């Protein structure tokens, strides 16, 4: 059976219009005008192209850019039915679509691998290479900003009761000595009711007075300081900077900022960040255990401290708490308590000295 009818032909060489007759045979589409056959396209190389819905536009892979346009409604209907299985356009060819689809899957997988393994690995390789002087310089830049954020209200500021400072120095000196950090460490207590402590880049450890209130014994405070010293020794602040840069490159540059996907990207970043901090906290805990054992203290005290903080903050409120940046406390407490060991301590803090530390914020 043959389908015949009128069409318009462009040869792909000039924009001239040729009014032609087409004949659709078993395996060829023949295009002819009054002078005879112009061209014959094998059906296997035929493709359907974009055009208004009431029309049909055909091309052949053998003759790029040559086009056959059919407007006659009867012929459009007949050809559409006869050529139902034709590929739509070169871009829609299956091999290309599969290639592009495979590429997308590969891209998603490699983004995932980079987030889970690549970026932390790069960060931990790069962090030790950052010169100490840079870290100290960054710390000098960051510290006033942090103090500014913490010290907005009049009642806040650095706590400096002389007896308390002296006792805290005595308590921390043996820890610092045992931790052997690569840069000088300064420990300060800031008047803020939130129970938290953190290590800034450049060796500053800030303990918030809310945490001093919550800890029951000197060993608990030692445990927390040892944990923060772990962050200093591992240079986690610098590592965090590198990881953040890596994540923003990945999600900003590669994945793209496409309308609503910003939210998906933010969620992904937050989850990745939380995942990283879990590993970093576990490493700092392990370091704290080593240091506590080295100075003859009970490492389980850090676990007790975490318990006390968890009791004090039953749910995550609107303020930053120890829990929000130090995840999954029950696990950590269990692990820390398992490490418990009693060794005779080297130096002792008198009752009066401990009381002075507790009262460092008069």
């Amino acid at each position, binding site marked *: 059976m043959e389908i015949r009818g009128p069409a318009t032909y462009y040869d*792909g060489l000039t924009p*001239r219009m040729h009014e032609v007759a087409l004949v659709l045979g078993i395996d060829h589409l023949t295009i002819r005008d009054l002078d005879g056959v112009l*061209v014959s396209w094998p059906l296997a190389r035929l493709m359907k192209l*974009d055009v208004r819905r009431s029309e049909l536009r055909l091309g052949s892979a053998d003759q790029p850019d040559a086009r056959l346009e059919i407007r006659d409604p009867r012929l459009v209907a007949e050809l559409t039915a006869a050529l139902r299985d034709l590929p739509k356009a070169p871009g829609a060819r299956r091999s290309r679509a599969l290639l*592009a689809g495979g*590429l*997308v899957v590969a*891209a998603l997988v490699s*983004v995932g691998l980079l987030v889970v393994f690549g970026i932390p690995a790069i960060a931990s390789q790069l962090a030790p290479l950052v010169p100490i002087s840079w870290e100290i310089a960054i710390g000098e830049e960051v510290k006033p900003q942090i103090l500014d954020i913490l010290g907005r209200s009049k009642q806040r500021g650095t706590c400096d009761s002389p007896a308390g400072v002296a006792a805290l120095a005595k308590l921390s000196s043996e820890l610092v000595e045992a931790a052997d950090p690569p840069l000088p460490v300064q420990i300060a207590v800031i008047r803020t009711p939130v129970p938290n402590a953190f290590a800034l880049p450049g060796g500053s450890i800030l303990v918030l007075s809310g945490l001093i209130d919550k800890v029951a014994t000197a060993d608990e405070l030692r445990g927390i300081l040892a944990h923060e010293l772990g962050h200093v020794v591992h240079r986690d602040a610098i590592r965090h900077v590198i990881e953040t840069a890596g994540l923003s490159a990945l999600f900003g540059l590669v994945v793209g900022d496409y309308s609503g996907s910003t939210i998906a990207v933010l969620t992904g970043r937050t989850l990745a960040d939380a995942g990283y901090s879990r590993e970093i906290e576990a490493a700092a805990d392990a370091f704290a255990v080593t240091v506590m054992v080295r100075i003859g203290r009970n490492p389980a005290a850090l676990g007790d401290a975490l318990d006390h903080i968890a009791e004090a903050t039953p749910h995550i409120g609107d303020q930053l708490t120890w829990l929000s940046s130090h995840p999954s406390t029950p696990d950590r407490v269990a692990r820390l308590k398992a490490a418990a060991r009693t060794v005779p301590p080297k130096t002792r803090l008198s009752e009066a000295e401990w009381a002075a530390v507790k009262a460092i914020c008069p």
Partner: protein
Amino acid sequence: MNERSQAGLPPLPVQRPTVQPVPPVGPWPGGGAAAWGPLPTQGMPSLGRVAFDSDTPGVVPMAIWGSLLSFLTLGIYRFWFTVKIRRELWRRAALAGSTFEYTGTVWEIVKGFLVALVILAPIWALYTLGTFLLPSRQYAGIAGLMTFVAVIGFVFFVYFATYRARRYRVSRTLWRGVRFHQTGSGVAYAFMNFGWWLLVPFSCGVSIPFARAQLERYRMTNTWFGDKRFESEASGSAMMPAFLLYLGLCLGPPLLLAILAFVTAGGLNHIGDQFGNLARFFETGDRSRGLPGIGMAFAVLFLGLAVFWLVAAPFVCWPIYRASEWRSFNERMSIGGVRFRSDFTAWELYTTYLVFLAIATGLMMAVGIVSGIIFAIALAAQMRETSLLPVLLIGGLYLLVLWGLSVARLKIFLFDLTGKLVRTTTVIGLERLGDTLSLRDKVGALGDDFSGGFDIGAI
């Protein structure tokens, strides 16, 4: 005669005919007297409106699905979506009854994206390292330099990418079996943009029309249909009256308002006295000398209006200039004796913006009301503060608004505005293109994904 060789350019490969070319037959559909006969053309040049089909449905469903899939795939579907959108746009535009055809593929755009990534990665690394080192005193100097170089490099890349993206899109545009293409250099285009921007502060903005005209000339004289080159006599001085009108609209009303404020406040001495009285009242509570009256209140109001206008006018008045520039650039453009005319008006730009604004406002209000209801229900049910349900619901609503806006943007700013631009264009003497010979440019899609991609309708 090949115009490329005249212009000193290497000839592009002419397609090898697989069939013998045949003598032309047949008239333009509906063209009447404008026979597509052998050249030189006899008779009067034909007039042709360009058509754009805005009536056939399909844009909104495509936008809805495309936006959703792009979101769900972290934006990776955008490559497919872009190709879909362009196919739809191109095939809705028709010149002399023949629709345009977009021949680009997803794979090309993905490859272009990957190449651009390779170029952008070192720029990004330089920027990150620069900002990272910036606080350290020791390296602040070099860090500042690195950051600066990275920012300049990025801006340079954006200009370069814009030009390359245009080259790609133009080279994938087919009409009656013949392709367009673009010559010229993306690097040169980026340098021109930089040069012109450096001039803006020194010329108090007067260089802007000249910059835009020169860039238009560069773009258009490097655009080809087959072996025929576009010409452009886009002129900055011809745009000067419109630009002065624009400046006047931006600066005139604030100046008048400032004078009015000065007058209502009662002159310089009087203003000083009144502020003195006000200060005395705040310090001592003494109001015996009177307080600033209604005149002063009006003066403050006028000054506020002046500041508001200064901020808003550059955007609000821009369509007036842009529409007149569009008409002028079209009239000064030609190809092989074919001329163009545009009847596009600022009003059509304003209606576009107003419709979008109305939809956006409607969406925001709807979401505001629904969020309020959700909060009220949550309060009435005495849910705990920590309950995530209302937060999730409102987050979902926010996503819905983004979705709606991206659909509206595509429909109104891309399809409807392109329709207005296309339909107001007249092509004069189209039959003169009859002796065009086909040329192909196989340029890749470098820069395509990074320059907006859909900017053909965005003006």
